[in-house]
């Protein structure tokens, strides 16, 4: 079910501005890959190219190739909408739909696409997704309450439930815990550990302890200065990256000497 991602010579632009240059990496299936690096180095921008959310921004475009199990995401016959159904995304700030209840939020991917679903199938999907996001026990008695009535951490898990309800192959997470308290963060990290058996997970984080805790591979991005493009400095097993990185910048960043 989960699939690998191969990125080759990827340049990412906003208009004529080169934001991220020359990234080549392989993200293995059924594992957690963390992107770390200082603010503005292009981690999130790069993450958004993996499910073609980057091009939602006017003027944004990419050069190079991203392929999932050998299928190129950017060839001309690929529908970006179909790509996003296969590759889910969780954002930095929890963003449940304010007009929908908890259950409707989970079903959003189905309902918004005008797909019909029997009542019992919908109930099953809600329970399955919320259980998968470790939220079922907390909300099972108030599924018809608005999603915005939940706490921040619960909202973020609701967003994860919403993302996995469309049964993607890959889950991208853009700093999913940066707006959350430590207890909610722990809940999400536990969830990531559970989810990696089924999904390929890519997580952007500013928190290096978090990267060390949850990921198998870590990629370090850096930027030489403002106006310069961000680059992938190195990528390796998380243990190697945090104990004996091969590049000096990585070591400086991880040991807190800059960034």
């Amino acid at each position: 079910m989960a699939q690998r991602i191969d990125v080759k010579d990827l340049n990412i632009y906003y208009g004529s501005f080169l934001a991220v240059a020359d990234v080549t990496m392989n993200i293995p299936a059924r594992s957690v890959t963390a992107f770390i690096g200082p603010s503005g180095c292009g981690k999130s921008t790069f993450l958004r190219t993996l499910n073609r959310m980057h091009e939602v921004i006017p003027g944004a475009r990419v050069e190079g190739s991203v392929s999932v199990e050998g299928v190129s995401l950017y060839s001309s016959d690929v529908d970006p909408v179909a790509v996003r159904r296969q590759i889910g995304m969780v954002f930095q700030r929890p963003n449940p739909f304010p007009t929908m209840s908890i259950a409707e939020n989970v079903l959003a991917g189905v309902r918004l696409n005008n797909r019909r679903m029997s009542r019992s199938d919908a109930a099953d999907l809600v329970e399955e997704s919320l259980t998968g996001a470790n939220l079922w026990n907390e909300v099972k008695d108030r599924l018809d309450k608005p999603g915005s009535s939940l706490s921040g951490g619960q909202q973020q898990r609701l967003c994860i439930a919403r993302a996995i309800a469309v049964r993607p192959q890959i889950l991208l997470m853009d700093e999913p815990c940066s707006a959350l308290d430590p207890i909610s963060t722990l809940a999400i990290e536990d969830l990531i550990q559970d989810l990696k058996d089924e999904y390929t997970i890519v997580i952007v984080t500013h928190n290096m302890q978090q990267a060390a805790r949850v990921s198998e591979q870590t990629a370090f991005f850096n930027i030489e200065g403002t106006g310069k493009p961000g680059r992938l400095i190195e990528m390796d097993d998380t243990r190697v990256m945090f104990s004996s990185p091969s590049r000096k910048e990585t070591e400086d960043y991880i040991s807190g000497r800059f960034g």
Partner: protein
Amino acid sequence: MATATAAPAFQVHRIETRRRVTNHVMTGLVVLAFLLAMTPLVSVTWSVIAEGYKQLSPYFLTHSMRGVFGGSESGGIYHAMLGTVLITLAATVISVPIGLFTAIYLVEYGRGPLARAVTFFVDVMTGIPSIVAGLFAYALFAVILGPGATFGLIGGIALSVLMTPVVVRSSEEMLRLVPNELREAALALGVPKWLTVVKVVLRTAVAGLTTGVMIAIARVIGETAPLLLTAGFSDSINSDLFHGRMMTLPVFIYSSWHKGYVPCNAGDVACNPNINFERAWAAALTLIVIVMLLNLVARLVARFFAPKTGTH
């Protein structure tokens, strides 16, 4: 040595006093400005109610002016209410789709010179004097049907020229208020853009959009000049927007007032010399009540569709 440079005295009291005075003066000014703004409003409301209630009755609201002459107290404004509702409805039916789609284009799709041109022309349209809108609609139908064409729909089109830019502006603001995160959340679930716009953006903004449409309706429902030119005067009930003259409340108010005093024969008790003025006031009161009712409906709709917050 420590006494050589004495610390400055603690001036809490003086500063507190000065700030308190300033605070009181400014509060007073703000309240005064509010009262000044309220004075004409209260005065108008009071006059309209005090003068308008004299003629207002179920009979007045359910009869037309057909065959009513002189100082007779019979007759009513049913024909004008019907005309106002129909013509405003026609204007709304024309303006809301055009205005809403323009706003969607500007917020969700518009880039570059075309979007800037649309914004510019919407701004220009906002400033069109209402009589010019009336002349435009009159001239348009004069070209198509020959000069002298007068029926309700022309009035509706004249009002829609005034209404569309208001709808565009208010809808645009409401759509821009929808957080971008919601669009991204929907797109990331593999929802096509058009469905994201329809089911997330419009759905989230619907309360504000309704309010905006109501404001636009309130803006045009009291227009007189363009309707004088396009829908004309009538004493009879006409429910057909496509044929014949159609009376509206603002035009009724204007024409009643214009008729002025009725010369009554001495001793004719059935003759009320002030009847035309009283009818005008009553029609004005009716118009205000209609606008208020529309606002009430809009508020209910807005509350019903508002994004759910909190735990209730």
